[in-house]
């Protein structure tokens, strides 16, 4: 979440709220990114084993991501309201696993929950930590729609660059040396 890496609590769960999928949105997303007949053509979809239109799994996942971003922004506001400085979230390096369990039909309401399952400092990017999150999406009948293992970056508050790196960064600011250093890497 939008907290410093040090303040992220493993096993903490966040209710990201819910979202109702309309037929219009299901078809619009399908036409743009996943134009298989059961996502875009109501009549043809009736012939599929789904028996009607269903949302692209990628659509349900993109909405889940949006709910997560909204929750990050809300947490940022909450921290500012308490007079605390929020942390910094970075881009995600990937997703370990995503399983679609039940289709989403027009009118379905999906509730999203995020749970932090683990964290560790990044080996490749100094000053940043990796967060491991579980995202669960459940429909109005309490059926699991999908669950996922996500990975994200969060900045360390108390990171101090090692002396050698600080010296290199300072040297790199001098134009000639910076050029030579970059050529060397």
């Amino acid at each position: 979440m939008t907290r410093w890496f040090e303040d992220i609590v493993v096993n903490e769960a966040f209710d990201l709220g819910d979202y109702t999928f309309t037929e219009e949105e299901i078809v619009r997303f399908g036409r743009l990114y996943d134009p298989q007949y059961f996502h875009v053509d109501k009549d043809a979809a009736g012939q599929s084993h789904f028996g009607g239109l269903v949302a692209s799994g990628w659509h349900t996942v993109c909405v889940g991501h949006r709910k997560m971003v909204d929750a990050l922004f809300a947490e940022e506001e909450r921290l500012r309201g308490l007079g605390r400085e929020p942390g910094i979230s970075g881009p995600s390096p990937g997703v370990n696993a995503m399983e679609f369990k039940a289709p989403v039909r027009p009118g379905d309401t999906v509730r999203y929950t995020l749970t932090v399952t683990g964290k560790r400092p990044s080996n490749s990017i100094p000053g940043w930590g990796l967060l491991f999150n579980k995202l669960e999406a459940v429909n109005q009948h309490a059926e699991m729609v999908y669950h996922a293992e996500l990975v994200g970056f969060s900045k360390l508050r108390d990171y101090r660059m090692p002396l050698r790196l600080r010296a290199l960064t300072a040297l790199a600011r001098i134009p000639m040396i910076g050029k030579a250093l970059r050529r060397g890497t």
Partner: protein
Amino acid sequence: MTNPVTKDLRHFEDLEVGEVTDLGKVTVTKDMIVSFAREFDPFPFHLDEKAAKESLLGGLASSGWQTGALSLRMLVESFLGNIASAGGLGFKNLKWKNPVMVGDTIGGTVTIAELRRSHHHPEWGIITLDFDVKNQKGQPVMTMRLSNLVELRDPAAPILETAP
């Protein structure tokens, strides 16, 4: 029971492990990046050039979910739309390797990694696809392994276990 929508498409029996499909290409514009980000990924580093320059991405780049969505679109147009697909099961090991910047053209291949029958549903097979998406410089952009259901032409055919 034949599905009239898919009857003339390739079925599970027509597919082979190792088959490679060219995904085609798509060029990602600033408008595409910003409009997708507004809807699904409104972080400042996907919306605003200045914020993007100061971020880990180093410039305005598409949401990883947009890169995935565009890759999915290419997959449906080049392959999935031509087979008797019965829906996605999920994916594993999705890795965003390099950001997709404004003006980049992405493309690549998808390879059939595995084919197996479903034990619970004899009418379906499970296809596993490896994505390899690159930019115009040949740098890797995204890899993932996707699983999808495919209808069988002959569901009554015995399920043969392949040797381990």
